[in-house]
Structures are given as C-alpha cells and as structure tokens.
C-alpha cells in the first residue's frame, strides 16, 4: 500500500425518514452504539465505533432528511457532516418501495463530492409489490455499488459494510449525475467560475446551492452577484421560481433512474395494505373513535402498567432506607444518616420512580412511530391542535401530561420543528398531572360540599387546559412568531416493527433521560433536602424530649413530636424562604405555612401535602388525612383553598419538569424561563381569582 491506512474510517448513513435507515444502523452497530445530541441542537446523534476486518469504523446515523438544502436543523446537520471531510464514505439507504422520492436525495448526494454506496432497503417488500430491480444498471447510473438489504432481518448489512470499506479504500468521490439542462447548466458554470479557490466539484456544488437560494456567507461577492443575475435570467425564461425548476430537474433524474432500473412494475398492488388500513384508521366516522381507543390504550399502558413497578421501586427504596436506619449505629452522625436516607435515597427515588413510566412511554412511542401510526395521529388531530397554536403531533405529549409532565416533555421529541416543539414543551406543564391530583384530593373535600367536588375538580383540569391553550397562542404570537411550520408530512406505509428496533429505540431514550435529566433531578433533590434540613434548630421553645418522655398517652407524645418537627421546619432555609416570600404571596391569600409547603413541593408536587402536615404539627399526613382537612378548614376559607389549587396547577410542577425542559431545549435559559413564566402566570391568575372572589364575597364564609 502506498499511502498509510487511515486509523479510523467514518461512514455516514444518510437517507429519507422512514427508509429503514435506523434499523440498518442498529444491525450494523449492534451493542456499540452511543446516543447523544449534536452540539447546540436537540437533534439526536447516533454513532457507533467498532472494528471490522482489522479496520476501526465509526458509523454515524445522520438525521433522516428528504433533502440537503439545509431548510431544517436536521438537513443542515446532514449537509455539514457530509461536507466536513471526515467521512470516508456515505451510505444512502434507499427505500425500494419508493424509489422516485428517495432518488431525489441521491441527486443531491451525488453533488457532494463524496464516495457513495447505496443500500437498496426493503427490496423484499418491493418484490412482493411486483417490483424487480436491475442492480447493475442502478449502480452504473448512480455511480456507486448498490447492495440489497433487509432492515427487519439484517440481511445484506455485512455486504453493505464490505462495499463501503471497498469504496472508501478506493476513495473515488461520486461526481454529479444530474443534468440540469442546457440553460441551467450554463448558469451553474457561470456561477461556479467565480469560486476560484475551490476544486471543480466543490465549485459546482456551491454554485448550485447559491442558485437554489441557500445562503453561503463565505461565497465570493462575484459568485453571489453572478448567482443573482443568473437566477433572474432563468426565472424569467422558465416562468417559475428557480428552486422549483431545480427540483424538477432532480426529480427528472430520479424518475428517469427509477423507471430504467425497475422491471415488471405493477403499480396497482403497491401499498395496498396501507390503503386498506388507512381506510379504516382514518375513516371519516370510525377514524376518531379508533384513535381515542388507541390513545386510551397508550395512556393505560404508560400509567396503569407502570404503576406496579413504580410501587416496587418505591417499596424497594423504602426497604433500603429502613434497613440503613436499622443498621446505622444509634446516634452516630445523624446528619449523614439523614443525607443518605432522605437526601440521596429520596433523590434517587425521584429519578427512577419515573423510569417505568418513561420506558413504557417510549415503548409506546417507538411502536407508534415505527408502525407509521404517529403520522396519522398528527393527521387526525392537526385541525384541533392547530387552532390552539400547536401541531397535530403535540397531542401525545399533552395526553401524557395528564399522567406526568416529565415523560410528556420527553415525548415532544416527535415534533420536527423547533417552534412547535418548544411551544409544546412550554405549555405541557399546565396540563394537570397525576401528582397534582394528590393536592386536589386533599383540598377539595376539605373545602367543598360533596355535590360540588366533581365540578371543582373538572374546573381545575379545564382551567389548566385553557391556560395551556392561551399561553400557546400567546407564544405563537410573540416568541415563536412567524409563518407556522409547514405541515407537509409524509404518511409512511404501515410496517410491522421488529421488537429489536422498538427495544433499542426505547432503551436509547430512557438511557438519555437517566443520564441527562436524572443527574439534574438528583442534584436539585439533594439541594432541597439540604434547604429543608439546615440550619438545624438546637433550641426549641420547650424541652420536647423531656415532654415526650413524660407524655401520658402515645397520642400526646406523637402530638409533641409533631410540634417539634414543625418548629424545626420553621427554622430551616425552606421555612425561612416560606416566611420571606410571605409578602409576595399574601395578596394571593397564602400565609408563610403555605409558602413553605409550596417551596418544598418544588421537589415533587405530592410533597405539598406532607409539608402542610408538618407545618400544622400533624406529623406525616397524606391526601386522605381527615385531621389535616379539619385544620385546614379552621385556618383557611374555601376561596383560599381554591387559590392554593390554582397556584399549584399553574406554577412549575417540579424539579424533574425543569430538568426535562433543560434536557429537551438544551438550554438553561428556556428551563429557567419556564420556571419564572409559570410562577408569574400562576401568581397573576391566582391573584385575579382570589381578589375577584373577595370582591364578590365568594367562598369567604
């Protein structure tokens, strides 16, 4: 060998969404894969490093795109990665059942000046549709070897890697295959001339991009000028925008190749199964009931099936905590014991008790996405969701939000456009989650007569949805202003996913949650533990230890211990914060005790109930606690009770929500913005309701 062998060969996997690219990646990468984000954007980066035939390979699964014109972050990343020079070879995965549209991307890939290999995926499915392909002709026309593959069995993946290694070793870049016609070719040449420092391939590529309207800040002024002039000339001559003419030329190439390489075509049976299924699943009358039923199934899968393992985890952690307390040398380092038992185990619990829900949610989402039904969910719900300023695909996150906001925010991954995704993330917490239910379960029976309880609960949930809609519309009118992202979306053919791909998909997402959101949740949980523990009170208003020892009955002793706990909490940072914020929350009808509970509830909403129990010296309370209800009734009016529920509904639900937001927006700015914004909205709405209530004398008696 003349030149030294490269230490590592980078292979990029490009292709249309739904072309089966990721399942091929999974077959090739096996257990070596690593999931992360591309820097600066929340676009998933999947890569794997492994050795094949003595050569280290890095396989990167690019985001699925229909084009490389960089109109979306995914396209920009795919284009940048291909052009970065790091890639030895690019494999395009082509869905054999949809050659024409897949080859449109090929047309663009052949202009990139990189060696290309093609995986003709799902050729078995295409054959069952009556299609056969002339692979040799295809390879000749596309300028790279064509390897038939099967994403569900992994067939052909080894041959694909072998072909990629061979092509990379030869290192011959594929050169432009698309002829744009005499007129456009002249213009391209005229613009390309201006890129003096570039080689022919790169000059042509940049000229085409400029003519296509893609901004190129590094282009010489002459090139930009020439592009403007030529574009005007071609648009005048063609009578339509230049980017349309260029797309026509690429599709002309795609159609030409598709027709030439396809044999025994019988288009009548193509996608017949998909058509039949859509006739049922998108039926004018039955489509929506079936959808509601499926969503009910998803919700129950995530929360009903997730409930027992969640309880096992909680029971397990409880047992562990109890065990540690039991074996802990009595009296030794009580602070360390509290840190381990309450801080660390509590924090870990806060992270992994979500895990069953999240695994099941991602299982459901992976299944919906891989079968092709997710696109139908968007299709069915878009009209309603679009009116709210959201996207059809926002429906699933909002639905999941009824159970828990954290998986809801993670579920926004399915939204392609940043505007839609961020809007959904920011309004999802207003949908009342299951943890907030414990607060309503405590407060509603405490303040409202039985015949009103159902209505109040219904009203609270509706209020949350109403605020979510209003905020979504507000965001679309301000921060996310501008034309709404196009809904133009493929309805992919229905396919049966393999357990393998669903499993990998589910595990990747769950692992990312544990890694990224989990660490933040754990850290803040420990911080909240510290705030609820320090500073420690050593001097109490009376000698509780002696009083408890002297107590006549166990009940009296328990009451004394609870009173001591209340005094201790009042002394801690959380108690002090509660007192410090009292002036700010007094207009809402809250006193420092509610403030303390609210601060503590930031760890998790259900903590509100326990904290209220402690501040009222009732010891540990739960949402069914009748004595706590009596105390609340004695201290607050129903209007104040309603104000508390409203505030809990609308303020940021918990640490985990903020951590998930940070994770999905990749920015502390958005996460903290959400915290502040939600607090402000909660304050304003609660203030308005409370003051109006006072004014009209509702629920003050």
């Amino acid at each position: 060998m003349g030149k030294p062998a490269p230490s590592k060969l980078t292979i990029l996997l490009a292709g249309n969404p739904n072309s089966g690219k990721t399942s091929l990646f999974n077959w090739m990468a096996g257990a070596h894969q690593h999931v992360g984000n591309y820097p600066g954007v929340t676009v998933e980066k999947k890569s794997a490093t492994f050795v094949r035939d003595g050569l280290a390979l890095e396989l990167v699964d690019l985001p699925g795109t229909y084009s490389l014109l960089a109109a979306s972050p995914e396209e920009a990343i795919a284009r940048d990665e291909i052009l970065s020079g790091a890639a030895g070879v690019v494999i395009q995965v082509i869905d054999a059942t949809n050659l024409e549209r897949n080859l449109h991307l090929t047309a663009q890939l052949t202009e990139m000046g990189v060696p290309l290999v093609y995986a003709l995926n799902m050729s078995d499915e295409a054959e069952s549709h009556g299609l056969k392909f002339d692979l040799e002709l295809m390879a000749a026309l596309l300028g790279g070897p064509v390897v038939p593959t099967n994403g569900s069995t992994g067939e052909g993946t080894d041959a694909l890697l072998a072909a990629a290694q061979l092509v990379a070793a030869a290192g011959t870049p594929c050169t432009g295959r698309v002829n744009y016609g005499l007129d456009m070719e002249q213009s391209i040449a005229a613009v390309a001339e201006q890129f003096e420092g570039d080689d022919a391939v790169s000059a042509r590529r940049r000229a085409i991009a400029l003519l296509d309207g893609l901004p190129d800040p590094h282009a010489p002024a002459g090139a930009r000028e020439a592009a403007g002039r030529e574009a005007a000339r071609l648009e005048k001559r063609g009578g339509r925008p230049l980017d349309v003419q260029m797309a026509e030329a690429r599709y002309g190439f795609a159609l030409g190749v598709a027709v030439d390489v396809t044999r025994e075509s019988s288009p009548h049976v193509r996608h017949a199964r998909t058509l039949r299924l859509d006739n049922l699943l998108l039926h004018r009358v039955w489509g929506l009931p079936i959808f509601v039923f499926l969503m009910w199934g998803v919700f129950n899968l995530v929360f009903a099936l997730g409930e027992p393992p969640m309880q096992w985890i909680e029971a397990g952690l409880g047992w562990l905590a109890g065990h540690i307390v039991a074996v802990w040398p009595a009296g030794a380092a009580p602070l360390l014991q509290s840190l381990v038992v309450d801080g660390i185990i509590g924090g870990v619990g806060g992270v992994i008790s979500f895990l069953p829900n999240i695994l099941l949610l991602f299982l459901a989402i992976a299944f919906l996405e891989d079968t092709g039904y997710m696109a139908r969910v968007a299709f069915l719900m878009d009209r309603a969701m679009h009116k709210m300023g959201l996207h059809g695909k926002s429906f699933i996150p909002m639905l999941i939000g009824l159970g828990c906001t954290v998986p809801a925010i993670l579920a926004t991954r399915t939204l392609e456009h940043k505007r839609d995704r961020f809007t959904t993330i920011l309004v999802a917490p207003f949908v009342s989650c299951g943890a907030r239910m414990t607060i309503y379960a405590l407060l509603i029976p405490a303040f409202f007569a039985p015949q009103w309880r159902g209505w109040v609960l219904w009203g609270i949930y509706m209020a949350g949805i109403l605020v979510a809609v209003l905020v979504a519309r507000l965001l679309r009118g301000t921060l996310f202003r501008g034309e709404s992202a196009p809904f133009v979306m493929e309805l992919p053919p229905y396919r049966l996913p393999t357990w393998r791909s669903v499993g990998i998909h589910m595990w990747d997402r769950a692992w990312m949650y544990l890694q990224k959101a989990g660490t933040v949740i754990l850290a803040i949980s420990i911080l909240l533990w510290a705030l609820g523990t320090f500073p420690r009170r050593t001097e109490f208003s009376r000698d509780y230890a002696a009083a408890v020892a002297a107590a006549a009955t166990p009940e009296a002793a328990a009451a004394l211990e609870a009173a001591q706990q209340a005094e201790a909490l009042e002394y801690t940072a959380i108690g002090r914060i509660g007192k410090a914020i009292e002036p700010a929350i007094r207009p809402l009808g809250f006193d420092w005790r509610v403030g303390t509970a609210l601060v503590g509830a930031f760890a998790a909403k259900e903590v509100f109930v326990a904290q209220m129990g402690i501040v009222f010296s009732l010891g540990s309370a739960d949402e069914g606690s009748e004595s706590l209800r009596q105390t609340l009734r004695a201290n607050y009016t129903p209007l104040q009770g309603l104000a508390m529920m409203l505030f809990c509904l609308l303020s940021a639900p918990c640490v985990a929500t903020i951590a998930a937001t940070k994770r999905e927006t990749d920015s502390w700015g958005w996460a903290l913005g959400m915290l502040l914004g939600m607090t402000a909205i909660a304050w304003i709405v609660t203030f308005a309701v409370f003051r109006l209530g006072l004014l009209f004398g509702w629920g003050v008696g």
Partner: protein
Amino acid sequence: MKIERLSSKAEDYLETILRLSETPRGARTGDIAEALDVQPSTVSAALKSLKDQGLLDYSPYGAVGLTPKGRQVAEDVSGRHVALRRFFAETLGLAQEDAEVAACGMEHDATPLVVDRMGLLGDFLRSHPGMIEKWVKVRETAKGERAPGVESGLDELPQGVRGVVMAVNVAGGLRKRLVEMGVTPGVLIAVERVAPLGDPIAVEVRGYRLSMRKAEAAHIRVKWRPGLI
C-alpha cells in the same frame, strides 16, 4: 343485430313531420322549413329522398304524411328524444333549454340500450327512498366542476379526480418543502382523503402519500384531469 339507422338529418325530418302532422294544419313544407330552420328548397329535396326510401307519402302542395315505416322511425326518434330530455332535465337537473339542446344532439347517436339504461338509472334513483335526495344534494354542490380543463387550488380538487400540478404559488420554506417532496409542476396528484375533522388532506403524489393542510394545498394550482383514478 345491426340496427339500420338513417342519417341524423333524416331522423330530424321524420320527427318534425310527426310532430307537425299531429297539429290541425298538418305538416306542410313551409312549416317544416321553419321548424328546422332551413330553406324550403332544401326541404323539398329532402322530402323527395325520404319518399324514395318509402318513409313519406305526399302529393305536391298537400300535407306531408308518414308511411307506417316512416311513422315507426319517427316515433322511435321522438321517444329517444323525450327519454333523453327527461333524463337530462329530471335526473341530471339541467335547465329545460339545456336538456332540449343536449337531447337533440344525442337522440341520433344514443343506442336504444343506452337510452334504456339512462331511464332505468333515473327510475332507480326515484324509486329507492332517499336516493334521489342524496343525488340532488351531490348534484347541487358539484357546480359543473368536473368539467375537463378546470384549474383550481389543490384544496378544491375533488377526491377521486386526478390533477396535474401547474404551479406552486407560495414563497419561502413552504415552497421548498413542497417541491423537495416532489410536488413539482407537471406531476400528477390526487386527493386521497380528508381528515375526519375536515383538515388536513392526504394526497397521492409520485407513488407515496403526503399530508398537508388545506391552506397549504391552496397554493398548489392544479389542472383537473377528467376520469377517475
């Protein structure tokens, strides 16, 4: 069995003579010429030809009469005319004048079987409860849009009709997205279905399915291609 048919002109004469002969004046050359909007001399020549074929019987300056064979042909034509006019007016809902013009145009070419089936279809619609009402509703909302050569936005292309994309009249990201998905001028496109809530729509283009909002589809100009998919 091959039906021996006269020229459409001859049929028109026979039909007119039949109609006029039922009036008190009878069918006279001048009246025939007036009814058919031709010169009296033309009428004379035509009548002679018909007489030679044994369809008419007349003496100069007298009323024109039909032979039994001529009457048979005239009644057939007249019957087809009436049946067609009725079909056009009552079943298809055309105005009386339009129905008359359409019937005159088609009465010579429609075979008895075609006329019979048209009548059968009309009777079927009227005799089955609810059918004619449904059909009238469809008919009234259609507004002649299925006529070939109509151009409209893709959102107005009825389901089951193919269209050819003429232009994508929108700027920016939406246009880029549409053309890169294959919605380029010259491509065949069809609306496959409308979402249950009325929006968005699913279209078939280049052998796959694409969904888009109606507002987005409105930017795509299509020329309708007659004929079902």
